[in-house]
């Protein structure tokens, strides 16, 4: 597959995911906007995937491994604390009598 084709494929994925995102987020009640932001923040920590690749490569330079290490730590903090805090917030949302 050529580079141009690769790039187009990726842009297709981006476009469709963005449209999906608009549809999904529009339906979230303003009541939950804080937990929503906290959740998307936790999910964005999926950049840990890139950080792991950078850190674990066999020919990674010491600089690359150091920066990768910091990135893995930062992303892990976000993922762990993000999901836990979101859940803590959501636990508090109760109806009368629940």
């Amino acid at each position, binding site marked *: 597959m050529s580079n141009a084709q690769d790039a187009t494929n*990726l842009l297709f994925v981006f476009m469709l995911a963005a449209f999906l995102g608009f549809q999904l987020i529009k339906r979230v009640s303003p009541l*939950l906007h804080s937990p929503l932001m906290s959740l998307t923040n936790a999910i964005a920590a999926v*950049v840990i995937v890139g950080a792991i*690749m950078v850190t674990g490569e*066999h020919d990674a330079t010491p600089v690359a491994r150091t920066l990768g290490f910091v990135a893995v730590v930062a992303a892990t903090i976000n993922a762990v604390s993000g*999901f*836990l805090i979101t859940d803590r*917030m959501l636990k508090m949302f109760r109806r*009368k009598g629940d």
Partner: protein
Amino acid sequence: MTVLQSSNAVLVQAAYLVASGLFVLALMWMSSPKTARRGVRAGELGMLIAVCGTLLHSGVVQYDLIFVAILLGTLIGVPMAFLMPMTAIPQRTAISHAFGAMAVGLIGAVEYGKLAPTQGAGSFTVWALMFEILLGLLTCTASVVAFAKLQEIMPTRPIMFKGQQVLNLAVFLGALACAGVMIASPANTTPFPFFVALALVFGVLLVLPIGGADMPTVIALLNSYAGLAASAMGFALGNKLLIVVGALDGTSGFILAMVMCKAMNRSFTNVLFGGFGQAAPAGSGGGEERAHRSYTAEEAAPMLEMASSVVIVPGYGMAVSQAQHRVAELYEHLEECGVEVKFAIHPVAGRMPGHMNVLLAEADVPYDKLVELEDINPELPQTDVVLVIGANDTVNPAARDDPSSAIAGMPIIEADRAKQVMIVKRSMNAGFAGIDNPIYYKDNAGMLFGDAKKVAEHLVKELQELAA
């Protein structure tokens, strides 16, 4: 070995596919409080699958540092999640945007160092890397400044100086020029340090002129940038999982920022170029002393008790004095007295989207009592008492009545249309926007001076005595 590698590659892609699906489900389930916690579970599972999939990747061979980093991150993240007070949620959100964006920027820098020499002029990968690094780094420093403002390490007022916009534009164009040079000749890495420095500085400059009350929009926008940076990383690495997640987060932050702007009747550019409320001219009638009435808690409590309907309008002042638990007690006492109580939530009340809802939910106010702006306004003319606690600009009738007001056209909670309005406020000083609020001088309005928490405590005490 090659068979193993290709079966590995299939496994990794399958893990990413499943993880993407789970993240989509997570956002879908966030639509309602009933399913939202299931959404968190889906997100956690998605993350676990994505991480495990990546560890299986044939390119990943050195695990030592990775495991140490994950352990360290978990050791920091878990206590952070449990010890963080709910009032600090806006700050936490800002600083975690900074962490996430920093990770993106660092990975981008490493990838650039590795890939740049192998790329041809104008290569798609270098384009993506430039976007990734620019967005990652500027979001990182911008989020740090937002954090400092929210934590009040820095003044929350807009910081403006002469030639600010020219400087901002110059720094931004400078960063773009560096990126342009590196895209045109990837082997030439000389501009890279300048590019990094300019991107970092631009992030700081971006948030300096933005004041405290505009933070909901800014945090939402930074959320969006952090997402887009992840997408850019996906483009650079050819990783569809990152592209999907980044696009979902990017749109989420963008939609929230639009909701915030609409709730203030302002445009993105107006918020971003900031300085709002810095030198807001006094509205009509400014200068002359106008009479306002003031109530004591002893006078106010019986009025609340005898009302058949009360609407409470909370604002940032409630968060500042951490009054949400006392306000919730007040709500409970009034309900016991047979008063129908609701809370009116303005979209931009507080420092991030949904801030008031989280605080009141924390204080055990049922979420069906939290009513949105459009739904509460039609009910207000029939409401006996509106109690404004720490809100100011969001109930300012000048936004509706005075076209020359700095906040003209901003949707407000029409507290002034209720039979009685009581405003809990520390003093007669103007609110964030520096705009006078005519609601204080209306015939049906009265002030309850004092700290929100103390006043709520007083009211509860008075209600208890009335009941006894």
